[in-house]
């Protein structure tokens, strides 16, 4: 119990307090520990741990091949890639003019070739998939199911149109007309009365037209309905406000979680 419970909690508490309160102290030894030593210790540990990871990967994939489990063919590529990377990294340089160590970045080496022509395109392929996933996710998010989804759809359209060249060309009056028609739908749903709806829509359109003739139909006026300005407002005011609220919650959550570990309240990480 002492070695498995008390000692780990004591280490976490000591290092945690030192790191937290070290920020307030102007003492070079503590500063060095917090900013350099502690992180280097972690890096050293992580470097050793990578062997465990690599061995685990090799073991799992080899087992799959030997037992011919589902998808064992893919494991051949995983093991093959693993062995090829080790050969390119430690056995064959591919360019004698370059020293060992520098060969991972030097031109004409096997490792660099593997990185440029295998690893980078494969990573880029995975990253490129995002474009398609964004499209399918957007389709689901923008489907009009409820008030929130409708709001998201409208905000999304305004942001997208307001940020492309065509958005500058769309007159604020056109957006105003659309807004009146949209509010007309809301009025109709609220009152369920055709006369009230007709009165609101016709009155709104008439007033807008009179105002348009009176003001000379400027594209960017009234500014509230001009897409570049509207998208800027949505992006910088409600979006930032929501984002900051989430950030504050996250900050508080991180602080509370850290304090629970440092004070030894949360002991799940040692299996308690």
């Amino acid at each position: 119990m002492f070695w498995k419970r008390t000692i780990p909690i004591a280490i976490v508490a000591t290092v945690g307090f030192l790191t937290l309160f070290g920020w307030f102290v102007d003492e070079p030894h503590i500063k060095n520990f917090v900013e350099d030593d502690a992180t280097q210790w972690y890096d050293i540990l992580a470097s050793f741990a990578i062997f465990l990871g690599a061995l685990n990967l090799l073991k799992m994939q080899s087992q799959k091949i030997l037992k011919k489990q589902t998808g064992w063919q893919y494991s051949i590529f995983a093991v093959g890639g693993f062995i090829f990377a080790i050969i390119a990294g430690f056995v064959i340089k591919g360019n004698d003019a370059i020293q060992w160590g520098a060969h991972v970045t030097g031109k004409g080496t096997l490792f660099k070739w593997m990185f440029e022509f295998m690893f980078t395109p494969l990573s880029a392929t995975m990253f490129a998939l995002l474009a398609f996933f964004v499209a399918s996710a957007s389709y689901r998010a923008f489907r009009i199911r409820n008030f929130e989804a409708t709001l998201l759809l409208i905000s999304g359209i305004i942001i997208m149109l307001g940020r492309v060249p065509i958005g500058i060309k769309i007159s604020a009056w056109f957006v105003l007309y659309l807004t009146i028609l949209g509010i007309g739908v809301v009025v109709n749903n609220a009152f369920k009365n055709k006369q009230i709806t007709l009165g609101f829509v016709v009155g709104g359109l008439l007033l807008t037209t009179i105002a348009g003739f009176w003001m000379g139909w400027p594209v960017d006026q009234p500014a509230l309905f001009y897409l570049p300005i509207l998208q800027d407002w949505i992006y910088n005011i409600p979006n930032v406000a929501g984002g900051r609220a989430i950030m504050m919650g996250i900050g508080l959550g991180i602080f509370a979680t850290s304090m629970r570990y440092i004070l030894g309240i949360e002991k799940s990480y040692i299996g308690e």
Partner: protein
Amino acid sequence: MKDKQFWIGAGIVIALLMVYYLIGHPFFLSNRTVMLFAILLFSGTLIYYTRLAESGESFFLRDIPGLKAVEEAVGRSTEMGKQVLYVPGIMDMDQVETVAGVIVLGHVAKMTARYETPLNVPVSRAIVMKAGREACRESYLMEGRPDLFQDDMVHYLTDDQFAYAAGVNGIMVREEPAACLYMGKFYAESLILAETGNSIGAIQIAGTASQSQIPFFVTACDYTLIGEEFFAASAYLSQKPELLGGIKGQDMLKAMIVGVILIGSALRVFHDFGWISWDFVNFLTVQ
């Protein structure tokens, strides 16, 4: 004044700090005083509510649908005879989100042990693999099912972000888990994972404090634990009073912060109008 011991302790800490300050506060960076007091106040509030909970005081905590759904997801996997896929993010144990993810993994492992459901945890960092294994081993032991635990249920894939995403996607498509849980720190791979999980019809629950990834998870997952909810997951799932007390303390801190924002806004307006010379925002700015 319910907890006398706490108040005596707090009084001693304040007295010691005052003595330290009066003797010239050696080595202390004075321009960070506000931050120090904020940390002491925050810590004090958390400790106070934790002690209160330990003494038997009960608190009301709102339901978090995402956390209730975790057991439902494991149950669904059990009924379908399929595995639960748990992804603890792509960062190392030096990130508090990863630590929180591994702790939630421990709770999920308890459920999978109870229901005898297969658990698959591909990880992208070797240290996370070791920590995850220990968490699962302990959970299976605590549930009295050490026979069901296998080291390889938590296995390493790769450190690289997109290679890891490709690996996890491969597992999803080949093995079609009935439940996919994403709890940890995520970057651009979040949508790749969540959309693939969606395409195989798995029930998906995500929890992250990566602000830019939250919208993707909200869109593609059935339930999402947003920010602080994710950090509260361990307390909710364990139902331990000392952890639940901390959540209550967190809520009280939130109320305090709202109060400071309101007062600060008013003081800032007064300052901008020239009615007061003291700049509250400058006072709060971390030096």
